[in-house]
């Protein structure tokens, strides 16, 4: 997949993983596992990028005597998911146009 495209898709995947409830690193990896294999380093980079662009905020909470970082989606992040879905509607229309073109 084109690197630029892949980056955009991964960002939205991670946002989707924290959309319904706050989540933490390992849980995000596990939740995404059925659809894509994400390495720790890649996830770190994505989370950092999303935080820098204010799509999520972090908080640190205690869990069983140690600290764990939780990620919460912001309204900007939710907007990003909606934008992504709309963009893909357009892309799917183009896709079906191409498919029709090939059948002729």
């Amino acid at each position, binding site marked *: 997949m084109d690197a630029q495209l892949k980056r955009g898709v991964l960002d939205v995947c991670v946002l989707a993983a924290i959309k319904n409830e706050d989540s933490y690193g*390992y849980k995000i990896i596990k939740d995404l596992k059925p659809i894509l294999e994400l390495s720790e380093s890649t996830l770190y980079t994505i989370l950092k990028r999303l935080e820098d662009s204010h799509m999520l905020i972090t908080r640190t909470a205690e869990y069983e005597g140690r600290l764990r970082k939780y990620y919460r989606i912001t309204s900007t992040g939710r907007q990003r998911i909606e934008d992504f879905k709309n963009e893909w509607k357009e892309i799917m229309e183009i896709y079906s146009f191409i498919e029709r073109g090939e059948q002729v």
Partner: protein
Amino acid sequence: MKKKEFLDELRSKLVGLPQADIDERISFYEEMINDRMDEGKSEEEAVNDIGTVDEVIKQIAKETPLVSLVRHKMKPKRRLRGWEVVLIVLGFPLWFPLLITGFVLIFVGFILMWTGAIVSYAVETSLIAACFMGLLSFFLGYFDGGGITANLPYLGISMMCFGGAIMFGFACYGITKGMAKATRGMFIGIKSWFIRKGDRK
């Protein structure tokens, strides 16, 4: 490998990044290992899941832009003293040519790497040209009244070059692909070197 060993090794090799970034990454990996252990994995298994330190570093190098690595490296750790500034300014005629030489050397390295590819394209082009020339000579000779037999060698040469061009075409493709891969590898290598520079103390 134990968790502490892994994290210590990672920290010792991550010197090329800003300190806050290193701390954040270390605690991120620590949390990842802890969460796996909470799930019932042994310490070794949990560390294994993350991969080797070198793999992690390579991955980080891949994802960090070269510019930000260099920028961090070039940024002085403290304010420069007056005499240091004077030295840098006075030393300009010395360090500037050295810097340029360094860049030129890297650039020449790239050119040399790609020369192989360029040469193979030149050979490919000559083969195709020879194929057409042979064909041309054959027809010209034939219509000039030389007969088929006398001009047959030209046709033969043309056919040979045609075959050669096809085979060499595959070689060209392979070489170009290899070169592109090597160039990418070199970039990751340069970046890894920046990240883990302190490793060679």
